[in-house]
């Protein structure tokens, strides 16, 4: 069962009804439960991320919002209107597909105009709007090409343009950056965030990449096995994980059990010294990652913790020599978070 963290102030309740409201959604495929009873409110104008491993139900949830999947039970409301039985073509929603789903026989500009064309908007106006949107996604002058002649990053932006040209109040994005390389992905993360702010519309974004979710979202929901484990702002979810699963999936799972208390402490919050107070242990492994170094410390009292230290004055050589050393780990009590609630 998930708790509803308050939405970002200012983002919510502007228009009264939430952009998306899911109540009691359930979807099964034979024996497999894709979504097991889900309630979710997404505020107007929010960048909301559905985060989770594959098979956790996040994509199915997105498809229920788009209308490609009928829920077995529950209701879908978009801006206060119940659309549970409304066809995808009649919903005020557009989708950026994971494989882009560009029409292979149409040129870029024909792809982008498609939504306007089927609504019967005149050739001149739709051409203008398509060109405008193509410029906005930084693809000016490529309108005549076929999708097959574009790079992966360009196709991704055509898919984006094809969706936003319809000016939907709600844009659904299904792992849109999954097929791009790291550098392009990071550029697109910034770009998408800017775009969302400029357009002022609600984005519902599906990803399995926790860093992407933390960077881009106003709020996110962490999915596991067809349920939402936690909903909150990136800071909430990262610093106050409510379940062990969330702690492990969002960030490094640094869980300790002391005096009957299970808690988590994030690697960057741990102070590692050679003497002094704190948990005693031995550095088992050192991983040099350029800007910082990751240490895995075996604790005498049981368990192990990952510690991260920035390489400020130390060199890579210094860091690597730490292996096998005895150290003390300490942290401030307010940087530990109890994991009371374990999902049954």
């Amino acid at each position: 069962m998930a708790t509803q963290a308050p939405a970002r102030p200012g983002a919510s309740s502007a228009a009264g009804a939430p952009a998306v409201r899911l109540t009691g959604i359930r979807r099964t495929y034979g024996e497999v439960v894709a979504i097991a009873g889900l309630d979710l409110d997404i505020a107007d104008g929010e960048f909301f991320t559905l985060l989770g491993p594959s098979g956790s139900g996040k994509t199915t949830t997105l498809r229920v919002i788009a209308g490609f999947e009928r829920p077995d039970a529950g209701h879908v409301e978009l801006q206060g209107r119940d659309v549970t039985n409304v066809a995808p073509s009649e919903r005020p929603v557009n989708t950026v597909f994971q494989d882009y789903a560009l029409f292979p026989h149409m040129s870029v500009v024909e792809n982008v105009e498609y939504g306007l064309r089927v609504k019967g908007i005149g050739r001149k106006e739709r051409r203008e709007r398509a060109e405008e949107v193509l410029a906005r996604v930084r693809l000016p002058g490529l309108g005549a090409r076929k999708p097959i002649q574009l790079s992966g990053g360009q196709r991704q932006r055509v898919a984006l343009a094809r969706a936003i040209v319809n000016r939907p109040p709600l844009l659904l994005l299904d792992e849109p950056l999954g097929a791009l390389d790291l550098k392009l992905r990071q550029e697109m993360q910034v770009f998408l965030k800017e775009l969302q702010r400029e357009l002022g519309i609600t984005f519902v974004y599906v990803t399995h990449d926790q860093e992407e979710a933390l960077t881009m979202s106003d709020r996110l929901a962490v999915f596991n096995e067809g349920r939402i484990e936690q909903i909150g702002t990136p800071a909430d979810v990262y610093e106050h994980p409510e379940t062990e699963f969330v702690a492990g999936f969002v960030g490094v799972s640094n869980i300790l059990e002391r005096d009957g208390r299970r808690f988590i402490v994030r690697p960057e919050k741990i102070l590692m010294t050679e003497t002094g107070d704190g948990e005693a242990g031995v550095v088992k492994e050192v991983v040099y990652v350029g800007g910082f170094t990751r240490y895995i410390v075996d604790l005498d009292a049981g368990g192990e913790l990952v510690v991260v230290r920035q390489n400020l004055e130390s060199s890579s050589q210094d860091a690597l020599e730490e292996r096998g050393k005895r150290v003390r780990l300490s942290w401030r009590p307010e940087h530990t978070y109890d994991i009371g609630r374990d999902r049954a």
Partner: protein
Amino acid sequence: MERRSTRIGLALWALLVTAFLWIPLLLILVYAFNRSNVQSWPIPGFTTHWFRVAWDAQEVRDAIWLSVRAGLLATGIAILLGSGAAFAIARFRFFGRESVSFLLVLPIALPGIITGMALNTFFVFNHIDLSLWTIVIGHATFCIVIVYNNVLARLRRSSPSLLEASADLGADGWQTFRFVVWPVLSTALVAGGLLAFALSFDEVVVTYFTAGAQNTLPLLIFGYIRLGQQLPVVNAIAFAMIVLTVIPVALAQRLMRDTGVLRRGAANVTEATQGIPAV
């Protein structure tokens, strides 16, 4: 040096293979214009007389007309059933899916004589008179496979979310069919249809068992050659058939290549040709 000699060697080899395939055909093409009715080399003189004789012969005309009708009907049936089957196999998971797929493709691997015999037995058993329709049924068995293979390959290559994307952008079912489904599939259908027609048009073995008293064009030629009659006329007909067969096959290949649906390169060649069995 070695690379150059390898290149020349390969070019020569390719030339030899091409010659091996085409010299017999070229011989027929030349004989079609032979002034003498005795086949000897070199031909004594040039004439288009045999084309006229072939054209004026009623039984040749009847045979051509029967072959065209059988080809068109078999192709039509193949397009309906083959594309329907391809859709089912590509888009749905159901019990026995793999077996159905196998059973669909099997007739093309079976020797024609088995298919022909089986059909003949079946028709006789059910007291069905051999007619145009029995020929059509016989041809449809392998024509369906051709269309099925072409459409299936196209469906597998195109994203299943295309239909969802179209609906998502506000298109109704008819618009999705008109703007997305048909353009994506049409070239595969036409190419499959052309190949199917070409196959049907020169089929002998299955036709032999299903044709009854009437002759399709290949059966007529077969009869002429067996009796050793009308050889110059046969050459003229062969000339026409080669031209008629090359055109749809070349067209089919071009159709599969020129569409933006496929990636450039080897993929489209295999898709276009995989329907063509060794006949």
